[in-house]
C-alpha cells in the first residue's frame, strides 16, 4: 500500500515510518504547514494517509498557529485526500481527552471526551472531529487512534509511568492494524468511521483496549507495574 505519513518528523512519525517500512511504500511529509495547493501533489497516487497529529517542530507554536494547523490544516488535508480518491485515513488522536474523568473510572470508546480549554488535547480533538465529519460525508474509511503517552519501554527510568503509556513501537503497530480497515464502500458512515483507544497492556488498566485488540492490535512492550499510576 502507498502510504503518506503527514508530520512524520516527530517521535511518533519516525516510529510509524519504521513500523510500516517493510510492507508499505512510504512518502513522508513534514512541512511547517499543511499547504492547500501542494497537498494535491503530495497525495497523488496514495492509497492511505496517516496523520500523526503532532505539529512539526519547525512550525510556530503560538496558540493561533496551532489552532489553525489542527483545524484548517486537517480540513484541507482531508479535503485533498477525498479529492484524490484516498480510501483509508488514520488520525493519531490522544487519550488525554479523558484527563478530567475520576481516576477510578474505566475509560472506553463509549465515554464522552472532555478536553480542557486551551489545551493540546482540545486541539487534537478538534482535528479528530474534522476527520469524523469528512468520513460522514465521503466514501473514505477513517480511523482515530487515541494513543496514550509515548514512553520508550526499554529506557531506564525511575519516574512513574502514566497508565496511558505506550511504547512508540506499539503505537506504530496500532497504525499498521488500522490501515487494514477498509469499509469505504459501506453506505453507513458509522462503519467507515472508527475510534480505538490504544495503550500498553497495563495491569489494572484505566483505558480499556478491547476494541483495538479486535482490530488486531497486540501490544508487545510492557512497563514495570509498580511504576504505573
Amino acid at each position, binding site marked *: 500500500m502507498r502510504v503518506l505519513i503527514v508530520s512524520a518528523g516527530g517521535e511518533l512519525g519516525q516510529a510509524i515510518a519504521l513500523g510500516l517500512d517493510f510492507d508499505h511504500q512510504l512518502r513522508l511529509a513534514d512541512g511547517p504547514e499543511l499547504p492547500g495547493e501542494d497537498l494535491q501533489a503530495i497525495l497523488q497516487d496514495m492509497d492511505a494517509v496517516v496523520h500523526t497529529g503532532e505539529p512539526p517542530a519547525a512550525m510556530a507554536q503560538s496558540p493561533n498557529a496551532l489552532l489553525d494547523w489542527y*483545524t484548517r490544516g486537517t480540513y484541507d488535508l482531508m479535503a485533498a485526500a477525498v479529492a484524490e480518491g484516498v480510501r483509508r485515513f488514520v488520525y493519531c488522536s490522544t487519550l488525554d481527552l479523558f484527563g478530567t474523568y475520576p481516576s477510578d473510572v474505566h475509560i472506553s470508546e463509549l465515554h464522552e471526551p472532555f478536553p480542557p480549554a486551551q489545551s493540546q488535547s482540545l486541539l487534537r480533538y478538534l482535528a479528530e472531529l474534522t476527520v469524523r*465529519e469528512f468520513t460522514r460525508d465521503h466514501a473514505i474509511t477513517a480511523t482515530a487512534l487515541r494513543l496514550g503517552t509515548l514512553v520508550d519501554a526499554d529506557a531506564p527510568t525511575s519516574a512513574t509511568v502514566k497508565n496511558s503509556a505506550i511504547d512508540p513501537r506499539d503505537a506504530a503497530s496500532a497504525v499498521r492494524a488500522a490501515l487494514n480497515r477498509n469499509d469505504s464502500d459501506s453506505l453507513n458512515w458509522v462503519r467507515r468511521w472508527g475510534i480505538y483507544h490504544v495503550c500498553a497492556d497495563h495491569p489494572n488498566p484505566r483505558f480499556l483496549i478491547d476494541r483495538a485488540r479486535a482490530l488486531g492490535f497486540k501490544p508487545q512492550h510492557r512497563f514495570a507495574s509498580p511504576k504505573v499510576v
Partner: protein
Amino acid sequence: MRLLVLGACGNIGPSLTPGLSEFYELTLTDTIPHPNGLPVESLDIRDYDAVEQACADHDAILNLCVVRDDPVLSFEVNTHGVDNISRALVRHGIKRVLHTGPQLVRQWFDHDFRVDDVPPMPGTGYYCFTKFLGMEISRAYARQHGINTVWFLFNGVGPKPEKSQHDTDHPPFTVVWEDLVAASRLALEAEDLPDHYQYFNLTSYVEHGKYAVDKARRLLGFEIGERLESYFRRTST
C-alpha cells in the same frame, strides 16, 4: 446587565438588538457601520487583544459574527473568533455568553419528523463546520470555567408575517424576531444551565411536525409567542 454585542451590524443584530435594548445596556461592535446609523465600536473578533479590551466592564456577550463560505475567513471568524471570545470571558470572569449559528441537522434529518434534541451533524461545508468547531471550543471553556454558554441554531430568521399568505407554505426552521428576543433573554439570564453549555434549535413554525423546540422549552422555558401558521391558511370558499 451590560451586554457586549459582537457582529451587531449583520443580518441579525440590527433587528434583534432593538428588542434587547429595553432590558440591557448594550455596546454594539462590528467591523462595518450600522445600517441604521447607530453608534458602533469597531471590533474584529479575530483580534484577541481587541476582544479582550472590549469585554471589560460587561456582564454578558452576544456573538452574532459569521463568515459563511470563505475557506480561510470562516475558520478565522467562526472558530478562532470563538476561541478569542472564550479566552476573554475567562480573563474578565464573565459567566454568560450567547452565540448564534446555523442549524446542523437538516443535511441528515430533513426527511424525518420531531427533530429536536439530536447531536449536531455539521458536515464539511465551511459555514456549518467552522461554527461547529467554535461550539466545541466554547463547550470546553464552559465546562472548565463555569461559563453559561448557549448556542441558538436556526435556518432562517426574519419578521413575522403581517398579513395572510396564500398558496404558500411557512418557512422551515425559521425564527421570528420576537421569538428570538424572548429566547435570547432567557438564555442570557439562565441559571444552572446543564453542564454550563447547551445548544438549542430554534423555530417559530412547528406545525409541520418536523423541527421542534421542546429542548428550549424544557431547559429555558421558551415558548413560541404567536402561532404564525395561522397566517398561511387557505381562504374559505
